């Protein structure tokens, strides 16, 4: 019999984390990474200490959004490594911390191995909730992550599915729910990003709550710093919904 010690190591690292939110999207380009950052800020403003894990190995981008790309990160070692603070009360664990910004062209089992390794070595001390930014798509990699999380975290685990309001995007989410449900029977959150006008949703019952982030024509230019992002219309509205619907996350 062959056993992998990293599963128990990851459980240990996540032992005091109250909730884990894998942030997923059926398709790329829906603003998932930006939304992950905005969610981390909104949850932080609720007084929570937030950890963020970038598992998009071949295209990690959170370090740009948190302004980490020009900083030399000294790895603090303590039962693994303690991810650096990228904002007051927000820590980021990313493969780029180990690759000095390089990408990891890891395939298939390598991707799963790398994510499990990151979970096993990241010491989430002083962290209440963890957001996991996943690569776009609902493929084997993302589904394996959901399965993995159910094995290593005993607290709240609630996928956040990000989409745009377009009919095709919503239909894609609807079609993917069967796959997601097969590995995660618990509650999920839907975020409709770049929302304009009305939407015709037929799957409200599948989600604990639905957040609508308005189309913000100035959002791209606000991505230069977190301070700018905090001033955006999109963030203000997301923050309002997160703060008025706290039970969505707990």
């Amino acid at each position, binding site marked *: 019999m062959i*056993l992998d*010690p990293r599963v128990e190591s990851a459980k*240990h690292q996540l032992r005091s984390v109250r909730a884990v939110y894998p942030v997923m999207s059926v398709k790329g380009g829906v603003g998932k990474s930006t939304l992950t950052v905005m969610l981390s800020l909104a949850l932080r403003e609720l007084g929570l200490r937030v950890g963020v894990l970038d598992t998009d190995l071949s295209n990690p981008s959170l370090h740009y959004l948190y302004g980490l790309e020009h900083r030399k990160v000294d790895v603090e070692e303590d039962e693994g490594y303690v991810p650096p603070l990228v904002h007051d009360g927000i820590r980021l664990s990313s493969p780029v911390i180990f*690759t000095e910004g390089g990408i*990891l062209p*890891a395939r298939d089992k390598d991707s799963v191995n790398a994510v499990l390794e990151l979970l096993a*070595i990241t010491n989430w001390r002083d962290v209440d909730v963890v957001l996991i930014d996943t690569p776009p798509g609902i493929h084997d990699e993302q589904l394996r992550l959901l399965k993995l999380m159910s094995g290593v975290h005993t607290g709240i685990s609630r996928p956040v599915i990000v989409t745009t309001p377009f009919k095709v995007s919503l239909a894609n989410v609807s079609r993917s729910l069967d796959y997601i449900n097969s590995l995660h029977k618990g509650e999920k959150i839907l975020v409709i990003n770049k929302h304009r006008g009305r939407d015709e949703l037929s799957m409200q019952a599948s989600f604990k709550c639905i957040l609508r982030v308005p189309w913000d024509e100035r959002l791209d230019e606000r991505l230069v710093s977190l301070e700018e992002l905090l001033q955006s219309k999109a963030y203000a509205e997301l923050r309002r919904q997160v703060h008025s619907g706290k039970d969505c996350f707990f």
Partner: protein
Amino acid sequence: MHESVIALGIVREIDKHVKSSGPPARIRVVLGELQNVDEVVLGEYMKMYLEEQGLREVDYVFEWEKARFRCSACGYEWSLDELGLTDSERETIHFLPEAIYAIVKCPKCGSRVYDVLSGRGVRIVIEEKER
């Protein structure tokens, strides 16, 4: 260096196995050359955690496994000895073995598409007693 958390994971897996199936005939802790853990430090942490779990009598052996790679483009196979990694690169790979894909290319054709055939990380091999 994160031997403490690796040792914790190993001991917890051994503990679960002993509780569910009884003591095994033999436990091999296989150490992949790529992850390059410090065997002495790992052993010290394991001793400490085994004692904490009341498993002082559990015996195990460390076995090293050579790291081997095969290029998906040209089929060339190589080992770590050919690479001449710096200490900094070794430390990076120690934390995250898949970081090797960001550091190393196939020595023959330069491709970054290759497989780690053996010696990646740490695994526990439990050999059961004959019944």
